[in-house]
């Protein structure tokens, strides 16, 4: 029967991996829809290059660094690798999305290599992996099933560092006013958000690690159900808040609310009963609705709302495990969760800041003002996204 488990878990992990890979076009479509038409090709190219470059760096360096070894007895080692590889791009996607419409590609590619080969694998090492902190006072006891902290906050902290160094888009904050820059293609935004949503089933479900026993099959199914429920709740609350405030349903906020709920549940979807995710997701969606304008007030220009969705909710989701599923017998405590959040932040934020700072000295991240005016597409890619469509004024 060992074979049975090995076969099923390999198959299941490949299935989960495929769902996660749908997040590559998912992020690409979401971001392409959210930016202005003159920056669409650039955003798409960044998404593609990140997948290529970060995955390759993870294959060549990062994976061994994170897990110590490729060995695996419970499933095919190649399946285990592919599953983990599917994660790495996400972290960088979170960061690249938030600095789009002004970031240049070359320095970003360099950062993607470092993130994929070193920074992210280090976070994995100390949380899910080989654990080089083992035995030290820093050793983590955080429960983070599918990466509220390991993936989403990590990406979020890197993004915060990037925004601080790169600055806002030209014309975004002027004379003390905030200029709204609307999304250019709403169907792409919706398509992207749902591909992400579906990818999340693989992300969280696959993170259970096995489906080959009755218990693990239940855990996987519960995980997927709770993941979905939190997304539903995030969407509903965000839609309701917008309606109360404006009497209008702002789909970009509704989808951000859903994504916020999904991030929030990610740390412990297997630990909750089926009602708790409603609360966790609803709080996640609410946080997004309030965080978006706050970041704008702080002049942290984030065209896709990644700080609110991934950083804020990555933190909230990790805490939520401590609040709703604390279980000291198994080592799950609110303090342990908090410690995890802090240690990861204390590692990722400064390291990212320094790395971006140094790269920035060599190849500037920020595009010149006139390049931003003309658009990144023509200047970085030489390819317009919609050359035949007449641009409105």
């Amino acid at each position, binding site marked *: 029967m060992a074979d049975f488990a090995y076969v099923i878990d390999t198959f299941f992990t490949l299935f989960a991996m495929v769902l996660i890979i749908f997040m590559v076009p998912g992020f690409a479509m979401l971001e392409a829809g959210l930016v202005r038409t003159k920056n669409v090709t650039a955003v798409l190219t960044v998404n593609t290059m990140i997948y290529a470059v970060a995955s390759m760096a993870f294959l060549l360096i990062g994976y061994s660094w994170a897990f110590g070894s490729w060995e695996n007895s419970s499933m095919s080692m190649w399946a285990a690798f592919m599953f983990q590889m599917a994660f790495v791009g996400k972290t960088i996607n979170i960061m690249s999305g938030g600095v789009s419409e002004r970031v240049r590609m070359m320095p970003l590619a360099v950062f993607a290599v470092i993130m994929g080969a070193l920074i992210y694998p280090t976070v994995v090492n100390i949380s899910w992996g080989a654990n080089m902190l083992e035995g030290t006072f820093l050793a983590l006891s955080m429960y983070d099933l599918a990466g509220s902290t390991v993936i989403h906050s990590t990406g979020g902290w890197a993004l915060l560092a990037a925004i601080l160094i790169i600055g806002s888009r030209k014309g975004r904050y002027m004379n003390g006013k905030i*200029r709204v820059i*609307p*999304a250019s293609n709403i169907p792409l935004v919706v398509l992207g958000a749902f591909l992400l949503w579906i990818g999340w089933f693989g992300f969280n479900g696959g993170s259970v690690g096995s489906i080959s026993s009755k218990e693990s099959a239940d855990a996987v199914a519960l995980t997927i159900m709770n993941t979905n429920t939190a997304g539903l709740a995030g969407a509903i609350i965000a839609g309701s808040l*917008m309606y109360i*405030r404006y009497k209008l349903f*702002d789909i*970009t*906020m509704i989808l*951000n609310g859903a994504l916020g709920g999904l991030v929030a549940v990610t740390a412990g979807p297997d630990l909750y009963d089926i009602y708790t995710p409603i609360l966790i997701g609803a709080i996640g969606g609410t946080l997004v609705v309030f965080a978006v*304008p706050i970041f704008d007030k702080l002049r942290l220009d984030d065209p896709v709302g990644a700080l609110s969705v991934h950083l804020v909710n990555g933190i909230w989701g990790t805490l939520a495990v401590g609040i709703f599923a604390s279980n000291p017998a198994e080592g799950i405590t609110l303090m342990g969760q908090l410690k995890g959040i802090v240690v990861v932040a204390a590692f990722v934020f400064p390291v990212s800041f320094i790395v971006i700072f140094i790269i920035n000295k060599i190849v500037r991240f920020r595009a010149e003002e006139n390049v931003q005016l003309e658009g990144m597409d023509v200047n970085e890619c030489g390819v317009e996204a919609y050359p035949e469509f007449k641009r409105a004024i």
Partner: protein
Amino acid sequence: MKKIEAIIKPFKLEDVKDALAEIGITGMTVSEVKGYGRQKGHSELYRGAEYVVDFLPKVKMEMILDDDQVEEVVNTVVEAARTGKIGDGKIFISDIDQIIRIRTGETDSEAV
């Protein structure tokens, strides 16, 4: 000859075209423009922030006509395009020296 430029509300285009067809005007060139005037734009939302769209979509019709048709055409356009609400648009009339039909080389009145 005269050129008549009429800036109208987009959804009135069909009505105006039909009304003009009835008085025998079948040549015109139409383009989409944005108007800025007394009529104020609506505000839109994006991720929780409100903003004002102040250029409004309008349609511009251009017709070249013989001088004696001008009055009738203007009246027809005014009637068909009017809703009585702000933003109904304007008509501008100016002189045209010469017209040429590319296909035949005919000029002026024959080319209209």
